[in-house]
């Protein structure tokens, strides 16, 4: 029988901790004592008690699967309760388990617990003072659905994601092919220069680009003016038609260097022999690229798509600085800046929590789905 003991152990332990914590919290609340204290105490008891419970379960299970047979019982032979192998398995499982405890504790406290709390807040109309008492069911989510600004925001975030995938990644790939290999003169310098923006702080990047986008004296307008004199003094950050593309430009400038590095690393993993073999086999350069190089880069591309999608959903600093928090007229928001403005600045913690939960659910679903469906094989191959 093959039971995945470690996941079972972890899940049952997680359950024990949660049940213990939430149970004691309710109990404490009903007895008019500090529910937070109850939560902590219960979680602690669950953590330790869960361990003991699991250990006992283990023992009984080990007894069941011990090598005692009916014949032995008839003959009155008493085989050892635990075989050497079972003992070894138990020892191994518990070693793993104890080593995992510190990490899991931090994870529970600073990741899982806040998420659960936020999910909890999202059902309250709560300003952040005192305990949330004003339970409103799904009202926050319904408000979210009805808010025109949020719908624009969501569309902005998706557009940003789409642009990243369609423009930023191909651009990074093109540059990686140019400077990552071959014999372009000065490619080392280019490689360095192209990576510089990624080293800058996001705030600095945004501020630099605010100057570039300045309506009268910015580099962007001056350049445009020189090429197309009929377009003058465009407020890239002040017009709702342009603001998203301005944001995208800055995000691309800042982050394509990261993808470039990943692609260059990926390209180095493509044996030169294979491309030469393809050339001798009769492939033109674009066929070599399409049929040999790119398929061998597939795992890197899958990784950058993954990071790019998550990154564009979580983008905050650049947008916040560039649009001063959603300018013009709340058309320059992405999900995170929307959350910041309507959740934190307006002190509507319950409402903000609803946004956060939505964002979390979206990224989690994407992340799990993408990894399960597309990146599974990459992990398996990496583990080889």
């Amino acid at each position: 029988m093959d039971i995945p003991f470690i996941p079972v152990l972890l899940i049952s332990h997680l359950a024990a901790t949660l049940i213990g914590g939430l149970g004691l919290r309710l109990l404490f609340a009903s007895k008019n004592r500090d529910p937070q204290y109850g939560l902590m105490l219960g979680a602690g008891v669950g953590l330790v008690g869960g361990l003991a419970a699991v250990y006992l379960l283990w023992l009984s299970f080990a007894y069941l699967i011990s090598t005692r047979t009916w014949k032995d019982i008839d003959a009155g032979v008493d085989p050892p309760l635990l075989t050497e192998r079972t003992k070894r398995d138990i020892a191994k499982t518990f070693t793993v388990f104890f080593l995992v405890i510190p990490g899991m504790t931090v994870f529970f406290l600073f990741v899982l617990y806040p998420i659960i709390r936020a999910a909890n807040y999202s059902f309250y109309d709560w300003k952040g003072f005192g305990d949330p008492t004003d339970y409103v069911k799904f009202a926050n989510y319904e408000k979210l659905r009805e808010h025109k600004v949020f719908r624009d925001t969501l569309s902005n975030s998706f557009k940003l994601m789409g642009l990243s995938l369609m423009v930023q990644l191909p651009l990074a790939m093109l540059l990686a092919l140019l400077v990552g290999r071959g014999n372009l003169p000065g490619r080392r310098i280019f490689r360095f220069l192209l990576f510089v923006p990624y080293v800058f702080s996001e705030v600095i990047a945004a501020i630099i680009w605010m100057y570039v986008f300045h309506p009268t004296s910015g580099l962007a307008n001056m350049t445009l003016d020189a090429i197309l004199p009929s377009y003058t003094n465009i407020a890239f950050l002040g017009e709702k038609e342009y603001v998203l593309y301005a944001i995208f430009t800055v995000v691309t400038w800042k982050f394509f260097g990261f993808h470039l590095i990943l692609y260059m690393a990926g390209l180095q993993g493509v044996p030169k022999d294979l491309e030469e073999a393809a050339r001798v086999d009769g492939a033109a350069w674009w066929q070599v690229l399409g049929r040999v190089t790119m398929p061998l880069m597939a795992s890197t591309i899958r990784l950058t798509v993954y990071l790019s999608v998550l990154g564009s959903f979580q983008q905050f600093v650049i947008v916040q600085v560039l649009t001063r928090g959603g300018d013009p007229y709340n058309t320059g928001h992405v999900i995170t800046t929307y959350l910041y403005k309507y959740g934190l600045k307006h002190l509507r913690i319950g409402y903000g929590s609803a946004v956060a939960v939505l964002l979390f659910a979206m990224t989690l679903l994407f992340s799990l789905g993408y990894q399960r469906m597309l990146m599974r094989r990459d992990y398996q191959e990496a583990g080889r």
Partner: protein
Amino acid sequence: MASVTYRNVTKRWGDVTAVRNLSIEIPDGEFLVFVGPSGCGKSTSLRMLAGLEEITEGEILIGDRVVNNVAPKDRDIAMVFQSYALYPHMTVYDNMAFGLRLRRTPKQVIDERVREVAASLGIEQLLDRRPRQLSGGQRQRVAVGRAIVREPAVFLLDEPLSNLDAKLRVEARAFISKLHQRLGTTFIYVTHDQTEAMTMGQRIAVLRAGELMQIDSPSNLYDHPSNVFVAGFIGSPAMNFFDNVDLFEEGGKMWVDTGYFRLEVPEARYDLYRPHMGKQLTFGIRPEAISHPNYQPADIRPSLIEANVDVVELMGNEKIVYLEESGKTFLARFDPRADITVGQRTGAVFNMASMHLFDQETEQALQ
């Protein structure tokens, strides 16, 4: 099918000259081997022919066509790489069909050709596998199959056996020789292994530091090396050399004095060697021309010396004996029955009919 011509081909990387003024004519259907130590330019010569390296000077012709500026795909060549370079994301079938598909060959023809070639190489049961599921020997066959399925005019093989273990390598050698006989196409084969070169090549081009040292049939290279390098490179164990030998006539006979012992030159060589007397000369003799006195071949002109036995390596069919005289060590191949022990003094018979003399300054053979 096509001949190949290298005409004064030079390849330079900046200041480094990888190939210098190489001129070779390879007739249609020949099996030519480029051999030499690493860095001698043999792979570069092959890669220039494949179109994977630019030619700095000179020209390369396939058939009557100068191919200097022809893309690899239009040269009608196929190449087997040392790493095999099988596409890891394709099955064996797709690997073999790749070149044909690029040429828009009809599907049915591709299928026929791939299956036919796979059957002839004994890999038809592997067609659905990926390269990583194959053993080294199987990969090597697939790489060869991918090359021959396209029926190219010239086959290029760049050290295709280096990644195989010793036993497989011997099998693969025979397999490639047979393949050449069957296809009758021009084969150009690069290796650093002189055994591979000797066993497979119809002609062998020996390269050193980008220069062609000698190009000839295996037996001529072996019997008549044109310089010290070829003499030392071809043959294993390598030829024994004695520098600064004294060539002189005494009592109507010609003698070579190596400084350790004196050997009589066969009469047939008198006229050839006489003009070179007084020059600085190197004497060369292969280990197989030195035998134990009790087991010397019947038809030789023996020249007997004595030396100390330093090391004896019994190979089963022979004994490789390290002989030593006044600090100079040289190798001999004795009959395995020869009764010698280390530390002992033994007689050794030189078969002077297969002696070589080289001008020490130019390293060229006197011939």
